[in-house]
């Protein structure tokens, strides 16, 4: 079942078109920076974008900071929202369950497929950005942390790997919310919109002083905390909170998805 879902994911053109669209923005930004040599003014651009004119190898992190707030979550919400609701809308869900396949196993297979999509999307963005950054942008490695202290290439590499892993976990939180909505409705668009509504509400509430008490629990609160991995000493505070929070979102929404899907009537 899992192999079938993974094969379906990688052979479906929609997967690669979505990833190509996510990739297009950072690639366009890299081309514009290379052509104009004009970086963002301090305090105005995404994280690391000001540094890539000197050191193009940092562009994967800048690309991550660009796609993480909007493009990547939209793609993940669409993919995860389609997982169950898409089968229901096309009328294949009940046929899938007619086979000797448990509902939990089907949900697990769909989850693995969504996780694979998140991993592929993040890795493709990072690799493309590395290649584009190395070819088009600065070639004088800064080798310094955000705090200005020296970092070896090995330190930079493992911190980058941690940042990518952190982004994957953040997107798994989105995937869990969308997967839950996907078990609630037969409309994949409705499921994706439900997840995106949660994220938009979270982003809005983060700008309000009146919602300060709620903010530590909002799903987007710690997404960009991966920048703290590049401070010296590393500031673990928000990173650890982000990890715990996303794990909780995954546990709660996957649990809810499983509880709902295993008990609902399948009519389509």
């Amino acid at each position: 079942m899992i192999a079938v879902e993974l094969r379906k994911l990688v052979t479906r053109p929609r997967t690669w078109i979505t990833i190509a669209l996510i990739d297009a923005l950072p690639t366009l930004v890299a081309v514009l920076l290379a052509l104009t040599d004009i970086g963002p003014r301090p305090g105005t651009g995404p994280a690391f974008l000001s540094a890539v004119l000197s050191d193009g190898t940092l562009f994967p992190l800048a690309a991550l900071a660009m796609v993480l707030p909007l493009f990547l979550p939209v793609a993940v919400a669409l993919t995860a929202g389609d997982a169950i609701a898409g089968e229901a809308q096309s009328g294949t869900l009940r046929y899938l369950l007619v086979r000797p396949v448990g509902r939990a196993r089907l949900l697990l297979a769909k989850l693995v497929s969504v996780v694979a999509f998140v991993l592929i999307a993040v890795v493709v963005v990072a690799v493309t950005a590395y290649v584009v950054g190395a070819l088009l942008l600065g070639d004088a490695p800064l080798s310094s942390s955000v705090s200005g202290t020296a970092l070896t290439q090995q330190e930079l590499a493992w911190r980058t790997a941690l940042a990518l892993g952190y982004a994957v976990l953040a997107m798994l939180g989105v995937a869990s919310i969308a997967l839950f909505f996907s078990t609630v409705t037969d409309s994949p668009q409705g499921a994706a919109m439900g997840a995106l509504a949660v994220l938009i509400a979270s982003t809005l509430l983060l700008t309000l002083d009146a919602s300060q008490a709620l903010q530590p629990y909002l799903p987007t609160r710690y997404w960009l905390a991966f920048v703290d991995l590049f401070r010296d000493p590393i500031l673990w505070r928000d990173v650890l909170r982000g990890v715990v929070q996303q794990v909780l979102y995954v546990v709660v929404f996957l649990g809810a998805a499983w509880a709902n899907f295993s008990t609902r009537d399948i009519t389509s």
Partner: protein
Amino acid sequence: MVAAAVVLLAAPIAVRALPADDPEVPAARLLVAAQASGTVAYSGYVESSGTLQLPVTDQFSEVAGLLGGRSRLRVWWRSADDWRVDSLTPAGERDLLHSHGLTTEWDYEAERVTTTPRSEVRLPRSSDLLPPELGRLVLADARPGEVSALGAETVAGIDAAGLRLVPAERQATVDHVDVWMDPDTGLPLQVSVFSADAAAPDISTRFLELSTTMPSERVTRFVAPPGVSVDFDDVVDVAGAAQRYAPVVAPRRLAGLGPRRGGLGRGAVGEYGRGVTAMAAIPLWENSAEPLREQLARTPGAVVEADGSSSLSVGPLELLLTPEAFDEHSWLLLGTVTHPTLERAAAQLARRALMVAYP
């Protein structure tokens, strides 16, 4: 599973809701302990917020950001002459490192390192928002009759003792200041400044994490990254430049306020008042004064008088910029004193400031 998640979510809220143990230390003893806490080494994470919307010009943008927004700070404080404060932003950080009388500023996004000598006159900067620095500043000249105990509150995991300062001066615009401190060391952990009738503090700063272990020497040292040049500025900001170059000496007393104790020697910039009732008079070159004047003219709530002076009141902070007063200079008066006090000061400066030859 869901129940376990709910328990996990609720646990921190429940722990925070537990009442702190009140150490029941008399207010006068807390005051002395806070005033003497300057030798305590510490490190930690601080969040501050301000609601004072000041006009933004190139030379005052950092002050406007500090007093009118949220700041996330990391600090390693070994002593008053060996410390580091990182001001964190979503996309980078601006660090101040001070050692051997020199302050180095690292701006990641601008890839810029600037070193300046210690300046007895300067505008507020991120390190001034640290609870120990702000707490000691407001309590420096406080008298025992002005303070009262507040009970206890948990700050950064410590059962902190509270002290309320109500300034006695009639010119004061600060209604009260609440300072929460470690009862063992006297180190201020949280400071909230309130103007009259304010339900929420105008400025608030608190530790969220704190250690009183001496920070490592390594962490307060800075070596510029390869390829980044180090600039040396002999003045730290527009106030430092005024003190050094303006051809004038501010009066010793102004608007009924005496010179600030432990403040400046006589120079172009005057510092007056006591504790939280403070006023500064800064002679600004017109190339600094004019953008500020234009910005004030566009700022809601600012008042432009017929004589050309501009004034603004934001929370407890009052500001008055005179028209050109002498030799292409205007006086910028600002402080936590009433508007009539600033007007009186402006009138006296027009009569009593002492002109000197350029240094």
